[in-house]
């Protein structure tokens, strides 16, 4: 008898990927596998992350699978797509669920194109029931709306789960998963994209920061961004920015928080002179506490904020820097 396989696929070393996100994808994968009476499998491409076996067990993973191949080490897409296509041909899963990182945004749809599958990225939830199509809820219009898609096409369905959309929940008393190494033949893959200059992570990443202080257009001039940097430093956090500051060249694009920037999850997010557009909130809405400083009492950011100050951030930031140092 063949069982329905629900596969959560993650890979180590991927840019922007966080282990907690892999765990969130496993929680969602488990929900689908329970609904369909299937078996939850976790496919790790590349080296097994530290603590992987414990995560697999508390997420109720039945089979922990691993693909390792030297060709996958370069981190480019051709080898990944080929490896996953071979895997799917052999195992015929019902669903391949990725936890979304930068590279997933290319690998997931390319895999769908290769297999003739339907694909949805930016997913926040999946509803599954026996004998009916999977229903995937995804974020659209930068977060202003949610859309529900039904997936048709060849199996597996391919879904990429947005960061911070699902809270990991563990199961009690699950058996430890069986472990399987998956063999793929990548000898014919010649990566068509050659990295000439690799990206260099400069310092700590916004994705991992516990405290972020971000500035927006309300700062009104590039010089004032230093107030944001100083407050971030005083609080032991990192500075971020809304997209207009990047577009205007005030700050480097690695500072951008939002839909097309960093998806962060700090304990504290201070937004100074930021209006709270959905595309910005997509990158900080998961913060445990948001502090908003804005001259406009009706600014949208106050709807997301835990604490608000209606006022001029140029006057308040220097005082906050002082108060934070006390």
């Amino acid at each position, binding site marked *: 008898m063949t069982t329905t396989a629900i596969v959560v696929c993650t890979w180590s070393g991927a840019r*922007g990927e966080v282990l907690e996100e892999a765990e969130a994808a496993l929680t969602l994968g488990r929900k689908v596998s329970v609904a369909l009476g299937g078996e939850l499998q976790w496919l790790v491409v590349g080296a097994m992350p530290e603590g992987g076996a414990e995560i697999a067990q508390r997420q109720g993973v039945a089979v922990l699978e691993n693909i390792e191949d030297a060709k996958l080490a370069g981190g480019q897409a051709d080898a990944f797509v080929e490896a996953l296509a071979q895997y799917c041909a052999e195992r015929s899963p019902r669903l391949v669920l990725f936890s979304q990182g930068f590279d997933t945004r290319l690998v997931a749809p390319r895999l769908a194109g290769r297999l003739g599958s339907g694909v949805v990225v930016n997913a926040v939830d999946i509803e599954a029931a026996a004998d009916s199509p999977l229903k995937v809820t995804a974020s659209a219009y930068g977060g202003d709306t949610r859309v529900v898609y039904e997936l048709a*096409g060849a199996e597996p369905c391919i879904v990429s789960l947005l960061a911070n959309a699902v809270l990991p929940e563990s199961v009690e008393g699950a058996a430890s998963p069986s472990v399987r190494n998956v063999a793929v033949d990548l000898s014919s893959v010649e990566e068509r994209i050659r990295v000439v200059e690799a990206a260099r992570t400069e310092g700590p990443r916004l994705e991992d920061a516990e405290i972020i202080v971000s500035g927006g257009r309300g700062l009104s001039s590039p010089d004032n961004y230093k107030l944001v940097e100083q407050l971030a430093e005083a609080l032991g956090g990192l500075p971020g920015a809304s997209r207009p500051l990047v577009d205007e060249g005030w700050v480097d694009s690695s500072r951008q928080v939002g839909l097309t920037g960093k998806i962060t999850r700090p304990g504290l997010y201070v937004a100074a002179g930021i209006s709270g557009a959905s595309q910005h909130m997509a990158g900080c809405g998961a913060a445990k506490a948001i502090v908003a400083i804005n001259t406009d009492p009706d600014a949208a950011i106050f*709807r997301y904020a835990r604490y608000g100050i209606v006022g001029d951030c140029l006057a308040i930031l220097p005082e906050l820097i002082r108060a934070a140092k006390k």
Partner: protein
Amino acid sequence: MRIVVCVKEVLDPDAVNNYALAGRLEIGDDGKTLTQTTIPQLMNGFDEQAIEAALLLRDAGAECTICVVSVGADPANQLRHASALGADEVVGISSPVAEPDAHVVASLLVAHIRSLGGADLVLCGRQASDDDQGVVPALIGEALGMPVVTVASSVELADTSALRVTRVTPDGDEIVEAAMPAVVTISNEIGDPRYPTAANKLKARRVKPTLVGPDDLSLDADALAPRVLLTQQFVPTVQGNCEFISGDTPAELADRLVARLREDKVLP
């Protein structure tokens, strides 16, 4: 060389955002379409920047034909804008499927590119600002057997047959080389798109986009079978519970906020 730029017409995302923030974004009786008829249609911002990327290649001396193509109900306005910006050919493709998904759109674009005898470079936006998916370019690349380079902030010719592309990754800029033909998706970091000159705008008013229908393209049933069906759209609710800090001076506001954050253990 031939550069094909794929552009999508979308609802102005800022207008959608303003409606959403005002709590006035509504879904129609079909349960999936935004009802605001006053929201203007625009060219997807990243796609306008993809045209810019093509024009920058031309400015840098590349001899190229720039062909802008759009799948949509009535893309004439966007195509005229593309023409005013400097596109050599503008083509509208009408979909035989009422609600084409990314797969159907990609099939139509691919069939058109094939009918042109192929392309050396296919430029797309990194994602459409309505669905935010960024799936179409990857599907085009798979179907045409071309490598796909995503989220580019600059595209140059490395030599006559290869591209040098800077990608904006979460870890910083990455520079890659890819042999042509290739698909490249453009991000906002490429910079603001230029404005068309008044003279070109005037000239473009008379431009009639070439209209291509499914009969002009050879497509089988599978190519036109959607895989992803939009069944519902809704506006998520945001629960506000903001505690406003009051005070008479910036110093007082700052002290009270920091005290409150420490009290609530948000700050140590």
